[in-house]
């Protein structure tokens, strides 16, 4: 019973972070800032859902498998976020600056 509640809460938290990630993706102004919510909140969301499933499955063989899946998810998410950011930088896509701060330094785009 307690197991079901913990698993349910973790899955709800995961769904909430997915919602946040999507909201951020829609609200952010450019490709670099959009990387932050999409690769991160989604990672935490997916991880807490996976951990919730691991708790739900209890001490079974599904648990280590789910943990391994979570590790691969973290690895691929980081790699993919880096790949998108790097290709955007190499194509000289300028990045969004808050108004009034563009002149203070000339780095980046």
């Amino acid at each position, binding site marked *: 019973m307690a197991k079901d509640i913990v698993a349910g809460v973790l899955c709800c938290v995961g769904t909430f972070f997915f919602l946040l990630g999507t909201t*951020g993706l829609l609200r952010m102004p450019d490709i670099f800032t959009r990387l932050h919510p999409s690769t991160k909140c989604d990672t935490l969301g997916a991880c807490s859902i996976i951990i919730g499933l691991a708790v739900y499955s209890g001490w079974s*063989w599904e648990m280590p498998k789910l943990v391994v899946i979570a*590790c691969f998810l973290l690895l691929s998410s*980081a790699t993919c976020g880096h790949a998108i*950011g790097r290709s955007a*930088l190499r194509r000289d896509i300028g990045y969004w600056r808050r108004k009034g701060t563009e002149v203070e330094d000339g*780095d980046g785009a």
Partner: protein
Amino acid sequence: MTGSSDVRKKALLACILFAFWVIFTATVALYDLVLGAICSAFVAALTVALLGRALDPRITPMVLLRLPVFMVRLVWEIIKANYDVAKIILNPRLPIDPRIVEYRTYLPDDLPRTVFSDSITLTPGTVTVELEGDVLNVHCLCPYHEEGLAGLEKLVAWLFGVKRDG
């Protein structure tokens, strides 16, 4: 590449392979364990014969032992930073001031540097967009996100047993 260190590396690789075998076959019956042990030893021996090395020499048993602790601390950092980014996303004024900063790392090798830049990317608020030599270009959502980088660097240095020397 002969002698006892070679055997030790083979044994370490075989142990890692065997751990994966046990997780994926999901049984501890004697037949499966023996079969897994034989396969792991065979694959480890074949790897050394074909590639000339078993594991990357920088992946030592110490690194493998520290890895779970590293993961737990990294996940804690991720959760803290996620809370921060969540607050920014839900703020109606969207208080972001993004910039790309250059960060010069003292980590000596491409493997620790890769782990470091992956950790940065996993931590919300910062994304490594370029890694060239010892200089990382990090895109920060807010200027204060840059302050977390040094702590992460220390964590990665601890994982690989790197001492800072200027």
